[in-house]
């Protein structure tokens, strides 16, 4: 009976918005094995660091990814600033915190929509993306861009946000949050959604730890790890409690992200009234010499930036370890033994950003 079929999944596939290719070995709609292949969109961004002025490289760092763009730019700047021994102004730190939380909310809301799309719930997908527009509007009003903020800069922020605008944002966020409750309740309570998520793609606590999962993947398996606890930007002045679920299945990962959205709303409500006055930018002189690893918490998990400067305007080496890259081994583990109908759901719960991973 056991008739094995190989189904090519990606790099272009309607439910997979990312260019990864999986060869799914199928036995009666059950996946026996998933063999990945990568490298469809390698763009050589890390190499570019040798040809770009280190301040101008921020633009490229921001374009490693479209969704977690801001934290990429900010992480790069943070690494360079540490190498150069710069202490950026306090207001810049708070604004960076604000923008990274905004980007976390919009990334998670987009992900919720994509997940709904993966299990064939078109209306829920549209609802998530409609509400995400409210967050994008805030981002556009504060930074000028909808997903590529263009607000990070070595030495601070490229633009200041007027105080009256900062005072106006909480009301806008509250409006989005109120509407979002109805949508996240669907993810939590709806019968058909739970049929598709509960118990699917189980990843035990030990597997998650051993295979090096990061971010919501790790936290959904019961490991309390969050790089924001390291206290970069203004996170040292904000109490961030890592959000942990014990179930380790797709539903747990969804719940972690949903609760993180509300946590980010809470953080923003704390950050916005407390942004201190002062400059957002400082003059930078000289060039970086030395090396540094910066660790930040992307919406998708922990990201690591390595920067090595040689005292000239052009850096020696820049390296990014993106969360998606770390989450691929657990993904392959989860795919073994699942149903074909669950493949898109499981692939999406790692929140894949292959463009990020391949740079």
């Amino acid at each position, binding site marked *: 009976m056991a008739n094995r079929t190989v*189904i090519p999944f990606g790099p272009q*596939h309607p*439910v997979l918005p990312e260019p990864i290719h999986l060869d799914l070995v*199928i036995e009666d709609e059950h996946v026996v094995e998933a063999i990945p292949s990568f490298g469809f969109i390698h763009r050589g961004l890390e190499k570019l660091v040798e040809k770009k002025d280190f301040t101008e490289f921020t633009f490229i760092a921001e374009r490693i990814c479209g969704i977690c763009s801001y934290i990429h730019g900010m992480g790069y700047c943070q690494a360079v600033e540490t190498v150069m021994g710069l202490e950026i102004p306090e207001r810049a730190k708070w604004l960076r915190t604000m923008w990274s939380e905004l980007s976390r909310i919009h990334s998670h809301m987009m992900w919720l929509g994509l997940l709904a799309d993966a299990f*064939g719930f078109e*209306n829920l997908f549209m609802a998530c993306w409609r509400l995400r527009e409210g967050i994008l509007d805030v981002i556009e009003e504060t930074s000028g861009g909808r997903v590529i903020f263009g607000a990070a800069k070595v030495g601070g922020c490229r633009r200041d946000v007027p105080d009256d605008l900062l005072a106006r944002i909480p009301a806008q966020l509250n409006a989005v949050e109120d509407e979002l409750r109805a949508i996240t309740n669907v993810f939590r309570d*709806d019968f058909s959604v739970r*049929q*598709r998520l509960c118990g699917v793609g189980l990843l035990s606590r030990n597997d998650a730890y051993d295979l090096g999962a990061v971010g919501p993947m790790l936290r959904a398996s019961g490991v309390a790890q969050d790089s924001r606890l390291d206290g970069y930007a203004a996170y040292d002045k904000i109490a961030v409690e890592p959000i942990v679920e014990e179930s380790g299945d797709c539903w747990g990962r969804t719940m972690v992200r949903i609760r993180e959205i509300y946590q980010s709303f809470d953080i923003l409500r704390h950050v916005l009234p407390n942004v201190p006055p002062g400059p957002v930018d400082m003059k930078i002189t000289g060039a970086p010499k030395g090396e540094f690893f910066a660790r930040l918490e992307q919406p998708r998990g922990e990201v690591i930036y390595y920067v090595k400067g040689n005292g000239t305007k052009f850096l020696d080496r820049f390296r990014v370890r993106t969360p998606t890259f770390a989450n691929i081994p657990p993904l392959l583990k989860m795919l073994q033994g699942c149903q074909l109908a669950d493949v898109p759901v499981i692939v999406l719960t790692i929140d894949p950003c292959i463009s990020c991973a391949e740079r």
Partner: protein
Amino acid sequence: MSAWTRILAAILFVLLSPILAGLLAGLDRIISARMQSRIGPPLLQPIYDLLKLFQKERIAVNRSGHFFLLGYLLFTILAGIEFFIGGDLLIVIFALALASVFFVLGAFAAGSPYSHIGAERELIQIMASEPMLIMCAMGFYVATGSFQVTTIHAQPTPLIATLPGIFLGMIYILTIKLRKSPFDLSTSHHAHQEIVKGITTEFAGPYLAIIELAHGYETILLLGFLYLFFAPWPLLALAALIAVYFLEILADNTHARLYWQWVLRTSWAFTAIVGAGNLILLHYLQRGGTP
């Protein structure tokens, strides 16, 4: 019914169904869009789509696949004609089943794994829906003593009074037949599905248009089945059909796609409970009524 009215009914069915189904699909799209807070396409968009598909290039993956598609279209139309000229309900159901089998064969004729999985899932959907259709014919027979659509249509009291369970079962399988969530397994009106477009993956242009056309005829025919439950009261029938179609759209917009095991299990369970339950009850009631 005289021979001439039969011929007229057949011609009207063949000519009007695509237009009617197109308008219905257009309304469906607009209401779905509004449920998703979108403006949605123009009302005539499905008809534009169909005309555009017929103008496209004919690309054949496998010619025999297209031959089977013609069988699908032909037998769906035959089933519809048999129904609307007041023929035998059993022939309608068998012609419809044969049409579905041709569709599945067409998908199997192509080599694509997506197409094959879609075809397998379509077979499961046929398995899930067919018992209820046969149960429906049996219900009509028990209630009216005939399989002839004309006799069933001429009943003085609406059949919904005696066959409410069968009606509910028919609504349930209509969701499968219309390919709405949570039952859009083999293919879907949404582009985003894990097996791409499943059973229709390998068909493009005019051949895809044939599928859409046959699907339109099938929709009208199934709504005709539902109409029979309210035959003496046409206005009520129309209201009921609109309500049922609205419920289908609502179900489509409020459910995730589920697994084929779940679909098979629930539709059989539902068929057994409401369909068979209704039949047994009716049988005892009739025996009690006429000793």
